[in-house]
């Protein structure tokens, strides 16, 4: 159990507090708006204070000296940054996270930090005393890039090492159709775990006897490099995403374009001689935005991309440029509802894969139903990212998946845990939870556990459970 002070009770602040409270952390939420504070204190099981969060006096009053982390997520970038700097001056050992929406602040900080690597290592504090700056657009763009790297088939969660978690559909004609989960291992040499399944009736954590059918969606955990062969097993064809369109030349769109253009390998003669295929993504990159000025900027920044100044819902434009025949369309405009609708519309016109930036996971499940392949929930991405930074230092990481039905939780085993010394077979409880990965203390890498893996103190576990099922976590982490 750790103590975390959150300054700013906006959507992100509240969402973050909820997650942390769910994990039994001691949370203090500070905001200066009376209504927001009243609202939050009615709904959240934590201290909510109506004060100015950027005063050290207030922070000391709520016990910042004993806290493990400070998260500043107010509407104002400057307050977030100053609050962190202020606290850093007095309590340097505290973990500080600030959300910064101004891209220049973010980029400048990144650049300074990387340009003066020697200065910002060791005893020196990071710039402004902020350990992690969270930029919502950068986080969203990163999530999109990860999805695209996996062929934009479905939502992807990456873990520290080379494990990744994907949501795949069992296609018609797949070898997996009608096979029980326990028999799956015989189909391939790749090590993977089926973590949950979704069919018409709903979603569940499968046991060894569960039978999978074509049309079901399955959450799969595997090594990064095994993903292509697993997709093949599922009957999913991985197509080269050559023709890619980014809708929206705003911040997210620009970061995306930059990442795609950077990924392009320079042309090498020897590649042709050796018959190597250039497998880079986004050979033909198209950027579409209705704003004239943004388009001009984009065109100047990315000479390799085609930029169109048009409305994506304009049918004649889509025909003109053949957008409907694209391999991938990423809807990343600032209008998050439009993204959803535009993705669904383009999908219906025949675009192979679509990725849509939406506001939250609630909208995400609607988008999934509309046929959007990959959904990036903006707010959850930010909260996820903050959580992942809090992990390691204090709490475990949590990812919400399958429209919020399941959570992937990471935790460390301490001596009071009830499962110490037991093997996976003994504690197994099919359908309730599933231990996906284990990292033994001292070991560098995660491993997929097998039946007789025994748990010891200091193990780092990754498990999947139904959202809100706190008993399992208590049992594992040994805390109450």
């Amino acid at each position, binding site marked *: 159990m750790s103590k975390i002070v959150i300054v700013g009770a906006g959507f992100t602040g509240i969402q973050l507090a909820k997650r942390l409270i769910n994990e039994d952390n001691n949370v203090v939420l500070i905001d200066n708006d009376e209504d927001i504070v009243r609202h939050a204190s009615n709904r959240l099981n934590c201290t909510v204070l109506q004060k100015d969060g950027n005063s050290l006096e207030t922070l000391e009053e709520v016990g910042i000296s004993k806290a493990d982390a400070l998260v500043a997520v107010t509407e104002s970038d400057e307050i977030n940054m100053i609050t962190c700097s202020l606290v850093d001056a007095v309590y340097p050992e505290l973990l500080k996270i600030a959300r910064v929406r101004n891209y220049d602040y973010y980029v400048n900080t990144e650049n300074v930090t990387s340009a003066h690597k020697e200065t910002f290592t060791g005893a020196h504090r990071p710039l402004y005393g902020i350990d992690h700056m969270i930029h919502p657009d950068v986080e969203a763009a990163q999530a999109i890039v990860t999805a695209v790297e996996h062929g934009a088939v479905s939502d992807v969660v990456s873990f520290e090492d080379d494990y990744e978690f994907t949501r795949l559909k069992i296609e018609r004609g797949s070898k997996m159709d009608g096979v029980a989960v326990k028999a799956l291992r015989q189909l391939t040499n790749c090590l993977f775990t089926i973590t949950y399944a979704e069919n018409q009736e709903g979603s569940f954590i499968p046991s060894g006897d569960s039978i999978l059918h074509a049309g079901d969606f399955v959450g799969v955990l595997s090594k990064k490099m095994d993903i292509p062969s697993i997709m093949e097993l599922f009957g999913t064809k991985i197509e080269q995403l050559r023709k890619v369109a980014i809708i929206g030349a705003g911040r997210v769109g620009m970061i995306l374009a930059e990442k795609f253009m950077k990924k392009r390998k320079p042309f090498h003669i020897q590649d042709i001689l050796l018959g190597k295929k250039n497998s880079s993504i986004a050979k033909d990159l198209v950027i*579409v935005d209705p704003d004239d000025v943004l*388009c001009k900027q984009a*065109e*100047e920044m990315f000479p390799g991309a*085609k*930029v*169109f100044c*048009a409305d994506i819902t304009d049918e004649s434009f889509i025909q*003109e*440029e053949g957008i409907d025949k694209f391999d991938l369309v990423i809807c990343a405009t600032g209008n998050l509802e439009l993204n959803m609708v535009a993705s669904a519309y383009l999908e219906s016109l025949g675009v192979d894969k679509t990725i849509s930036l939406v506001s939250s996971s609630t909208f995400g499940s609607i988008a999934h139903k509309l046929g959007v392949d990959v959904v990036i929930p903006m707010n959850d991405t930010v909260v996820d990212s903050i959580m992942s930074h809090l992990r390691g230092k204090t709490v475990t990481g949590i990812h919400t998946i399958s429209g919020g039905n399941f959570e992937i939780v990471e935790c460390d085993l301490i001596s009071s845990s009830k499962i110490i010394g037991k093997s996976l077979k003994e504690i197994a409880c099919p359908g309730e939870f599933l231990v996906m990965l284990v990292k033994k203390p001292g070991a560098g890498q995660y491993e997929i556990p097998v039946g007789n893996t025994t748990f010891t103190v200091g193990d780092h576990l990754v498990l999947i459970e139904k959202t809100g099922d706190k008993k399992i976590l208590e049992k594992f982490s040994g805390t109450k």
Partner: protein
Amino acid sequence: MFFTVARIVFLIVAIVGATFVMPISVAAACGEYSCILPFAIPMVCSLVLGVLFFVLGIKKKATLSTRAGFVVVALAWFVVSLFGSIPLYTSGACPRFIDAFFESVSGFTTTGATVICDVESLPRCINLWRCQMHWLGGMGIVALTVALLPILGVGGFQLIKNETTGPEKGKFTPKIATTSKILWFIYFGMTVVETILLRIAGMDFVDALSHSFSTLGTGGFSTKNSSIAYYDSVSIDLICSVFMFLAGINFSLYYYIFTKKFSEITDNSELKTYVGIVFTAIFITTLFELKKYGGFFTSLRYTSFQVLSLVSTTGFSTSDYTLWSYASQLIIFVLFFIGGSSGSTAGGVKTVRWLILAKQLHNEILRMIHPHGVFSIKLNKRAGRKDVVFNVSAFFFIFFALVFLTTFIGCAFGLDLLTSFSGSLTMVGNFGPGFNLLGPSNNCGFLCDPIKVWYCIVMVAGRLEFFTMAVFFCPSFWKK
């Protein structure tokens, strides 16, 4: 205001007057004592006036309005030309004053069209002065003044902008005086190198110096009646070719060699185009003149010299291109329209302007295929100023309008069409030789006085790239 303008103009004249020291020392060394006074008297006068104005204005703050800047530059060029014609007239080199003035304008504007039939009979100091005018006018007399006298302060850049060539004018150091100094230093260095090389290749010192002045300034005056052909030496041809080529390149690129910013050079679109044009033209003419010269290398020697002489707007000749095949003549004729690079000492339209138009053409075609596309013009791998196309198209209009007007005036005073048209091009673009009666083996002496006067105006207008002169014809310039 009037005082400030007069002060700057007289200072410029004084600087030019100070350089009379060179012809005077040559006259003294060669025993041409009768020529010392025609140089010495104007030199002393200009220096006295210059010092007087300098001292008088020392306490006044020299603020120069944008409009006065145009007046200063345009006035300076005419006054300096007038000043430069004094020794030519008083020494008896040109018995008629209008001829002396024409010769002087042709010198300072680096045109290189001469009215003197027998240059070999002239005193050596006069010949040196003729070439020295090229050298001074090539890099610019205002630039020289700014480099040497720290009087102009902030207004300096405004003045130099009115004098330097090319659509995009910049300074690569924060202070314009430093930029000018560096450019003049590079220019000076190259002149020294060429003089030494020509001396080694067999010219005597004064001729070597004169021809280096003429080459680096891309002028075209020679101390010999048959120009470089007089020497009939492969090494001299080669040295001149190389330096004509170098003088046609933007001089700021040489600065980047010293500062080791090689990407500025390799990314320079104009340089690439210039090199491409030069080599294509040399290749084609070499092939067409194989028969005439009876061998690849002989043909290459003469055609490359001639191509470089015209593309850099120098106007030296080793062979009479009007005797070449029509195909080669056409190539030469096309070169009259191209000219060197912006920021070089060459005249003409400048390669970069054609490049911008070609890129605009490409964009227009793209716009027809992609009606919603956004396209910009990229030079040196960067997006250029947005309205650069407008500037360039205005330039083309004024260039061709002036060419046709000048052709008309020529024809009205009895010239044949080809002579008048090529003469007009050669004056507007500061080339030197033309076709037919103005071909490389003829000179301008036969032209009637009104044509000479008009040509003088046109040469200065061409050297200042029209806009600086055109403002005087705009009514709003004269309104308060």
